């Protein structure tokens, strides 16, 4: 794993990628720092961390687009897949390389609150908590980028799709108040989800009987819930998206709360996408 990590880090800092990521990140965060802390003389640095999350939209695709798609393009993935390294090690190494660049960058931004502390008291615990959230949010986005990079052999496509996927996380949050909240809409939404899961099952195994029976069992269970406990479907769509939303959980950190369930969610989110990436590579071995 460390071999992959070292190789990837070397690539980041011998090509413009790492510098573009760091430079752009620090430019924007520095700007927000100056505008919300330095000029108004405010010690509240958590505001900056709360406001600059949109940078991820632009910089995460830059950071992750190359990770696996480049290997596929240059056919070096065949070498990797047949190497004695385990798939988990390869994927983790690549993921940790991107995370390392991210950590180096936010380590530079620690300079900002340090500057503020020269001129007065700053809320240390709140700032620390906001950093933990910021780090976890960034790592989650990077895991999405890694996964998307494994799906294509074109860097550019990987970047665009990653950008769109991240944008979707924002858009869903914005649209929450416009989503339908009544029971029937919630019920239909759940049925659509069941349908999607079954479609995915069919596409992977091409077996109609299992797919249809899964659909029947799923739909049956949710119909039963609808009859026994219809209030389950009130606000179901909004609750679903809110629960899965990376950004609404991040808000807790910037509000000064260290929330165990949010930390657990981010870690599982990262785990799932690394796992999915491994599955995608695994699939190349047998299909």
């Amino acid at each position, binding site marked *: 794993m460390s071999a992959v990590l070292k190789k990837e880090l070397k690539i980041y*800092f011998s*090509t*413009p990628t*790492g*510098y*573009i990521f760091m*430079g*752009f990140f*620090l*430019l924007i965060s*520095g*700007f927000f*720092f*100056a505008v919300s802390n*330095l*000029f108004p*003389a*405010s*010690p509240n640095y958590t505001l900056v961390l709360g406001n600059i999350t949109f940078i991820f939209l632009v910089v995460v695709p830059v950071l992750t687009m190359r990770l696996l798609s480049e290997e596929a393009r240059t056919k070096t993935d065949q070498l990797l897949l047949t190497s004695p390294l385990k798939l988990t090690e390869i994927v983790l190494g690549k993921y940790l390389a991107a995370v390392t660049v991210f950590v180096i960058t936010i380590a530079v931004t620690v*300079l*900002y609150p340090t*500057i*503020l502390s020269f*001129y*007065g*008291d700053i*809320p240390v*615990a*709140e700032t*620390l*908590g906001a950093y933990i959230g910021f780090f976890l949010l960034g790592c989650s986005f990077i895991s999405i980028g890694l996964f998307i990079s494994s799906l294509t052999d074109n860097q550019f496509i990987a970047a665009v799709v990653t950008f769109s996927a991240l944008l979707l996380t924002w858009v869903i949050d914005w649209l*929450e*108040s*416009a*989503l339908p*909240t009544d029971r029937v809409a919630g019920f239909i939404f759940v049925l659509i989800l069941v349908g999607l899961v079954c479609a995915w*099952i069919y596409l*992977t*195994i*091409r*077996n*109609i009987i299992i797919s249809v029976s899964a659909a029947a069992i799923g739909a049956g269970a949710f119909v039963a819930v609808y009859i026994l406990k219809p209030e389950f479907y009130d*606000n179901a769509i*909004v609750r679903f998206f809110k629960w899965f939303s990376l950004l609404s959980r991040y*808000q807790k950190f910037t*509000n*000064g*709360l*260290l929330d*165990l*369930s949010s930390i*657990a969610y981010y870690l*599982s989110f990262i*785990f*799932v996408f690394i*796992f999915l990436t491994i*599955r995608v590579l*695994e699939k190349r071995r*047998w*299909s």
Partner: protein
Amino acid sequence: MVKLDLKSIKSSFKTRKFKYGGYAAMLTASVIAILIVLNLLVGQIPAKLDLTHNRLYSLSKPTIDLLKNLKKDVTIYALFPTGNENPVISEFIQKYAEKSSHVKIKYIDPYKNPGFVKKYQTSETQIDEGSLIVESGNKFRVINRYDMVDYSYNEQTGESNVTGLTIEQKLTPAILYVTSDKSPVLYELKGHGEDTLVRLGISSEIEAANYEIRDLNLLTEKSVPQDATAVIVISPKTDISDIELKKLKDYINSGGRVMFLMDILKDELKNFNSLFESLGVRLEHGIVMEGDNNYNAGNPVWILPKLESHDIVNPIDLNNMYMLIPNAQPIVETKFKKRTITVEKLLTTTSNSWLRKDLTSTSLSKEKGDKSGPFTLAVAITDKADAFNTKLRPRDAKVVIVGNATFLNSQFSKSVPGNLNFVINALNWLQDKKDTLQIQPKDLTTFRLNISTTQAMVWAAITVVGIPIVILVLGLTVWLRRRHL
């Protein structure tokens, strides 16, 4: 193409895709399912660490005690459009539900359920989006969104800033109110151009101190109602009639409790003054002006009164609060008064103050004909219970008189916390209440950094321009060097 004949279905169980894909799909699905269940379980643990320096999300001891002893079910309705909840308020009310299984929280979208809000609306109150409704049984209380934060008003810039979070001070008494069987009733005298607590914008604060506010019209009522805990008279513009005077006197004589807030008028209110004189005091006509700059707010008519030693004003002093009273008239003790009466001073001015008799004069300094201070601006009067005739006066009568009502205008009461505190303390004193639910507001003021504009400019230049340029130059050199290899 999907073929649905038996043979192809049978064979579909034997393909490579089924074998590997089925295994892969099962694995993926079970990993995701396990993680979701795990997260749902973790979500049940209310482990949240409050990192804020002012313990923003932590409940104070009186609230925790109340919640522990809660016996009745309480529902808190939070009126937010779905998906647009205020995270700070949501976190905060969540704490209440975590501490007591009797507290339920329901989010109601006020735009999708307009009928729901209507149920709680009265002609005088407006329920905005973002408000809370606390309900238990058939009692409820509305907490307006604007009452959950404290604002400070900057006179120079005209800006108001959020300075504190007061959700807890409103929510905890509201729960106490809806779960208690009886709550003290405060009657507001009406019919003489009085101001009202609603119009002054402080009704929610009085309700938060758990008073039920009702109107009192002494012309139609036979007497002050039996259930009255106290009567409040706010800035009457015309005098009371003789009948009303008698009813008020009877009430006081039978151990009643009244608070008078009297603004300066052009003419004297004879019946009011005769009532006051029976209590051993009298209002003196004129405006008190304070010459000592430590005791005025930049203008001699804006008095920062001296707080004397009394249960009503001591808490204000203890909490380092002050009061601001504009355009006050003085209260003088009469030479002769009943032996059962004691008059205690609450708010006074310095000897550097004077009384402006001529209300048309615009001069802000002492003139000839102005009477010299010190003056008393507020008094607390106790008329001892009659030990021999308990029928006439079964308990002490208590009266608070303030030579001003303007200090309760939202302009003053919202920015000077001592003003409101005074009224609530006075009401508590009137109903002999000692153990008040005192929850301090959460301080939200962030202190400014002691950084000069030049220093800020330098740091801004370093962080916005310096650091990114260094990195870009570094990147460029690495890239160029590799290109020319």
